[in-house]
């Protein structure tokens, strides 16, 4: 019995301690806060905020959270009125909800020169009903088709310009043992969304998905979306690497398959350029690491200059923050965001800020070739499609990913997919 009481006293002290800890957390009044993500280019953002803190009277507390955990925590925090001063988002459906719930404040008077500097196709993502509610904070992330030149050379192939080029490459590589045309991390599902997006866009143009975002009734049931889903299921038979549903992007296996020459192509976000340079330097420096845009679909209605991806991550300012906290955030946005040093840091790591004044700075950086291509892509894009999972309303995001997984696993037909997505609207 006495051991039990010791245990109880112990638990009670733990309880008391955690209560204290809870109160302590709530005690950071009048201190502006910002949550960012871990990994990738986020360290550079953290460094930049640090430099702001050193030069400014009022400072911003920075906390870095893992991507998936962030998405879930930020929603709860915003919903309960405990949001950090600066709320990071991918814009799209989530930003729209924040605006409708009046959780974020308009930034029109606090953007300084940013509006003139940022590419309009990117800037517009932060605009809701003619007011600026979010401003970009990092690099533009177009989805790029990476390739392994060695694999292409070995089988007498060249970089595809049209979808029929791609189809004949798939046919050629189909007969080769231990090499497949396309690496895709189907196990993580979201990389497959890039295929769905590009195929839909090339087939039917950007209007197809705009109708979905605008909530037009039955908009999912569109011939272009069905074409894309059918094509993906065909690629699952022949094209995508064997066991693609077991390949995981979190461990960069999809990039490794490209680097190892097990696959000729990889459709992935621009951040994979840095990943490959860091994790597979031999391949990156071998001269066989290439990148291009998604091929044109000859009979498609979509503009081949259209790009899908993430325009950037964006800052919004919480309406639940105190005036002083908001003032600090406004200062950061108008005075500090995309300062020269931060822009140089981004460029040197192969990330492209969505600014129209960086062209001259790209020359001479390590990633000059990649940045030039990405800059051309973004600057010349007729339309920049935000990733669908971010663009749809948050309640549709989970069904979209679940259904896409079912498509990949051959567990659902394209018709069932569009019907189920329509029923979620």
């Amino acid at each position, binding site marked *: 019995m006495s051991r039990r009481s010791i245990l109880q006293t112990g638990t009670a002290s733990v309880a008391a301690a955690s209560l204290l800890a809870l109160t302590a957390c709530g005690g950071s009044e009048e201190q502006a806060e910002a949550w960012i993500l871990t990994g990738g280019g986020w360290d550079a953002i953290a460094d930049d905020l640090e430099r702001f803190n050193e030069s400014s009277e009022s400072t911003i507390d920075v906390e870095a959270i893992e991507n998936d955990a962030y998405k879930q925590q930020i929603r709860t925090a915003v919903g309960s009125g405990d949001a950090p001063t600066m709320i990071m988002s991918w814009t799209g459906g989530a930003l729209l909800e924040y605006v409708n719930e009046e959780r974020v404040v308009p930034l029109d008077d606090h953007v300084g020169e940013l509006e003139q500097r940022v590419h309009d196709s990117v800037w517009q993502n932060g605009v809701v009903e003619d007011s600026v509610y979010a401003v970009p904070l990092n690099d533009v992330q177009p989805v790029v088709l990476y390739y392994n030149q060695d694999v292409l050379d070995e089988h007498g192939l060249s970089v595809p310009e049209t979808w029929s080029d791609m189809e004949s490459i798939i046919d050629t590589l189909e007969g080769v043992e231990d090499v497949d045309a396309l690496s895709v991390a189907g196990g993580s599902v979201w990389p497959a969304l890039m295929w769905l997006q590009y195929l839909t866009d090339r087939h039917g143009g950007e209007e197809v998905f705009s109708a979905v975002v605008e909530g037009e009734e039955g908009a999912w049931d569109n011939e272009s979306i069905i074409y894309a889903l059918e094509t993906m299921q065909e690629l699952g038979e022949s094209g995508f690497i064997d066991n693609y549903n077991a390949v995981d992007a979190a*461990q960069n296996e999809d990039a490794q398959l490209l680097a*190892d020459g097990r696959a000729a192509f990889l459709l992935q976000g621009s951040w994979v350029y840095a990943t490959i340079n860091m994790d597979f330097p031999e391949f990156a420096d071998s001269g066989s690491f290439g990148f291009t845009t998604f091929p044109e679909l000859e009979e498609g209605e979509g503009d081949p200059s259209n790009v899908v991806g993430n325009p950037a991550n964006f800052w919004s300012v919480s309406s639940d923050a105190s005036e002083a906290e908001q003032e600090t955030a406004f200062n950061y946005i108008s005075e500090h965001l995309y300062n020269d040093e931060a822009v140089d840091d981004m460029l040197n790591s192969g990330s492209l800020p969505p600014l129209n004044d960086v062209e001259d700075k790209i020359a001479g950086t390590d990633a000059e070739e990649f940045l030039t291509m990405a800059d051309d892509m973004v600057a010349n894009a007729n339309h920049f499609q935000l990733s669908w999972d971010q663009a749809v309303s948050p309640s549709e*995001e989970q069904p979209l990913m679940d259904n896409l997984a079912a498509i990949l696993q051959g567990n659902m037909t394209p018709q069932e997919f569009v019907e189920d997505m329509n029923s979620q609207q």
Partner: protein
Amino acid sequence: MTATASSDTSVGGKATGQRRQGPSFLMALPAVLFFGFFALIPLGGVLAISFMEWNVLGSPSWVGLDNWDAVLTDRPFTWRALGLTVIFVVGSYLFQAPVALLLGVFMAGQQRYRALLSVLYFLPLLFSSVAVGLTFQSLFSPYYGISSALPFEWLPHDWLANPDIVMYVMIFVVGWCFVPFHALLYQAGVRQIPTDMFEAATIDGAGRVRTFFSITLPQLRYTIITSSTLMLVGSLTYFDLIFVLTGGQPQDSVRILPLDMYITGFSANNLGYASVIAVILVAIGLSMSLLLNKLSGSTKMESDKAGA
């Protein structure tokens, strides 16, 4: 967690009620407060939210029994998730219990290298489940994992992507993590058996197997009950490794109720439905631990040490 904690207190409460010995109720106050604050109040909150529509961001509104109706009747997946949960709980028990028992009995012996081996068996308990998850993810990788490393053609390459085997893979990985803990319980249990019982059995001519079934196993019955309760309720509410390794995929083949609750609540942002699932889980967990207590007669548990 909630269910285990509550079963503990109900046992403790009964014992003091019957005997009226030992320290006063005042001593239990911190535990009661702790339990009330961190278990009962949130439980009440979850029950309330199960009657509300709430997407986390907006303000919740009462919808009466709508959520319950929807989750139990309009949502076939609830029943599938329940079925998967039963498979997972039963499978985990069938895997963990015998392995843990045999390992525990072995670890309690006096063999050579036993201490060294025990340390090795114990290791999985020390690892964080996320680290274990990531490690197994690499092991199960189709191109860079164990299947490519070993020269066995028949090994599957899609351990985590094949809906037919992923449940068994998860039962194995989760079992791998929890067997050491239960083996430790059994080791302690075996060490408590008076040695004269074993000596008497040896004199009577019982061999190893006979001794195990006639002395060790019956003497371990209370340990078996404790360990079984922990295993069953633990796997009923198990979450982390399955989430890290599969997220419930492929084809939702391992989306057991706790995972379903999390995904519904925090990925699909439907806290009303998620709370209904949570309440169902609490109900099942509570009934299961109460039933186990009743069946095992643990309220009548008495020491059977020699001389006690």
